[in-house]
């Protein structure tokens, strides 16, 4: 089965997997900004999360309010089996392409 994953979606999905059980909109946004050193709007992360949920790559549940959030609950995302599968597929495709491209990228040896 072919599981499609966009570049940004892949990043978000990876972070969801990495922050297993603790991932929510703001945490992912922060991570992207800090680790990838690029600015990203909250809404695009959220949109991406909803899209991933629609595709069945992540599932969400409500939980964990904190005072800094004005007592509001978080929507926590966890990766599904299908999500894991899609990450693997994406990585394999990437590897395959890298094998073909590396002689050029790293200089002909």
């Amino acid at each position, binding site marked *: 089965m072919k599981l499609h994953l966009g570049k940004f979606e892949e990043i978000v999905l990876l972070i969801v997997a990495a922050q297993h059980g603790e991932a*929510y*909109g*703001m945490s992912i*946004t*922060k991570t992207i900004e800090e680790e990838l050193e690029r600015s990203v*709007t*909250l*809404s*695009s992360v*959220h*949109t991406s999360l*909803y*899209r991933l949920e629609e595709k069945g790559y992540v599932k969400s549940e*409500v939980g964990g*309010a904190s005072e*800094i*959030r*004005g007592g*509001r*609950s*978080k*929507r926590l995302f966890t990766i599904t089996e299908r999500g894991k599968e899609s990450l693997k597929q994406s990585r394999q495709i990437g590897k395959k392409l890298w094998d073909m491209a590396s002689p050029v990228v790293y200089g002909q040896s």
Partner: protein
Amino acid sequence: MKANHKPPKLAERFFKWYCRNELADSILGDLEEQFYYNLENHGITKAKLYYWLNTFTFINRYTLRRRSMGKYKSGGLGTMLFHHLLISYRNLSRHKVFTIINVFGLVIGLASCLLIAGFLNNELSYDKFHEESENIYRINHFFVDNSGTITKMANTAPALVPGIRSLFPEIKKATQMRYARRSLLAYGDKSFYETGGFYADSSFLEVFSFPLAVGDKHRALDEPNSVVMSKQMAAKYFGNDDPMGKNITMNGDINLEVTGILEPVPGNSHLQFDFLVSFTSYIIPEGYRSDLTSWSWAGFLSYVRLAEGSDGKVLEEKINNMYKEMTPPEYNPDVTYVQPLSNIYLGSGDLVDDLASGIQSGNTFTIYSLGSVALLILLIAGFNFMNLSVAVSATRYKEIGLRKMLGAERGSLISQLLTESVLLGFIGLLLAYGFGWAAFEYLKSALDWNFTLDIATISLSIPFAVVVTLLVGVGSGLYPAMFLSGYKAVTALKDSVKNSAGTGSNLRKVLTAVQFCISIALIAATIVITKQYQYLSGQKLGFEKENVVVMKILPDDMSKYYDAFKDRLLKSNHIVNVSRTQRIMGEPWPINMISVNRETDNENKRILGSQVGYDFARTMGINLIEGRSFSKEFSDDATRSIIVNETTVKYLGLENPIGQDVNYFNFDGPRKIIGVVEDFNFLSLHHEIEPMALVMPFVNIQNMVVRVTPGNLSEKIDVLQSIWAEVNPGVPLEYRFMDDHLDRLYRNEARLSGLIFGFSGLTVLLASMGLYGLIAFSLNQRRREVGIRKVLGASVASLLIRFTRQYVILIGLSSLVAIPVVQFILNQWLEGFAYRIEISWWVYLVSIIALLVIALFTISHQAVSAALVSPVKVLKDE
């Protein structure tokens, strides 16, 4: 963390407004978290700014509220719509009377609108069928006389078109035409008088898009003695034979060869004709002291087709320069102006010249007044609809309450109620097409309404009609829908009866008042327009129009047979008097110049004149107040005498008019005034009496006027025809009656007053139907009140007064608003008449009383039955 800073409240509320509930909390949490993070790192301004930005960037399909209930949505649109229709049907059939009033009102309203729209569409479509019609212009001219009067004419000089045709590069094609007045055409034993003919050259068919069915349009009218004619006319003369190449005789001695057959001329062309004779065949009538090289003889219609993108005003300038150059120095050159083709039909009301009978012109007042009547009718129908819907829907509290309890959202309630009114609207529209069609066929014959409605035109109206119906349906359904759906379920269920009587009663009052305003205005307008029309037809003319027969006789026949015919006629005891004239009353009279032979004040002044035979005044019943008529005893009457009217005497400032020398067609020197006639109306009553001169004929004139003895007119016609047949055998005699001819001058007024009368009647009918429904409803709601009042001793009379009082007050208030408006508009209309009635106060009194009577009559039936009902019946349920 700075505790005193909080995320902007407004942004939060905005977000909550649009965001789905199940997502809102978690997203707001994230937003707030980011807000405090930003506050720490970037300061309060940026934090707030980002918060705001975020509330906007979050708008997308995941976050927006769904209209339906999400997971609980069932069935989909189809089921919903079916359900709406079912409930609508049940509701409509429960209130049959209201439904019928509603639909019937809409049908009348929409049908009237469709009809009027059809008429307006026709009026506005004139001359648009020509290719590149925006590049076609007619060249008109005007002149200003010494008194400053501007006279505009469509006819221009014969030298104009040949002079400019190849001179100015922007002119692609130019053509000139001359109306062939009345011609006797003969083929074999068939001969008829034809009035629909023009002299024109081949370029006529190139300037305009009147296609030929047979023949070459570029050459058909090149040769002298060629004629092209309509299919219909060809069939009249040649039957089933091929008309091409056949010879047809015109006026007895000219042989014309048929070189082309015209496709039918569209009804919405300002030029109407049956045949065109090549311009080169035109012979200047005997007695005309002018020729085709003249730059001052205004007797030809000139049309040009300009190159794409050229400016008519520039051409106008060039032509005027040319006129200045070509006109002899002793005359004032005419000033020309170009009139775009699109403006000719509706914009030629101010032209004074004698246009061909085939040239149609429209009336903008009729367009405006009918257009506004259409809108008013639609408004009244829409108001009825709204009024009755609000009233009836008030009985549906229980239904609405129950629906709400079962979880109906406001939106779905509104859409249900709207479905109902739009459904009614479309039922009305379908019936309106049927009604409109039937009424059109009737109106066409009853009002001489000369336009066609074909399937193509009707289908054009469909999108327009659908939009209008949707507007009416939604417009009138929206208020009740919003009103009802806004109620709380519990209130609606609990207090249904108590609330309903007062529902929307203020709105109903306003709508009813507007209807009363419109009704009063239209009743008053109908009275005034009808009175004005009657006034015009009954106006003293200064001559006797009854028992006068007008016969058009060809110039040649006139010069050969007039004297013999007249002698023979006078021997008959059916004939009182016989004369002839260049123009008859009600036709446009030729404009000439007159000046007095004296030291001071001898300027040329504008005057209208006709050439007439002996006994003209006596035949027409015109009073001679001074001097004498033309007489055979004075041999120089033919060239040296002139008769004027009273207005002329004042106009020229003459103290002793008889014997005064004036300059007016001085062929043998100045003319002497030999008589003064009492003013008579020789134009239509739209115009005031102008200065007028009568002289003896010096060109061939065509009209014979015969005064017959009163009595059976067809008998007199038989006498005329048998004597004519003896004098000039084989040539038909065509006649009309003076009074018929004059009545036709007021055809527009007659038609307008007929239309306004009909449509106002409909409007008032609609308004009273709405009133009936409203009263029936509100009384029904007040049955218990009536019962209690009766128990407490109220009399039937006092109850009736109670019910009707508020409507009387409403009518009073409405008239205060309506009267000034209608007074203003009607005065504008009356300005267009030289002879007009004054609008007196009783017109409005009658309008108000009429409306009161209609309204009270409408109310009374319901009110009486409500007041008479036994209190026991209505109170026993309590």
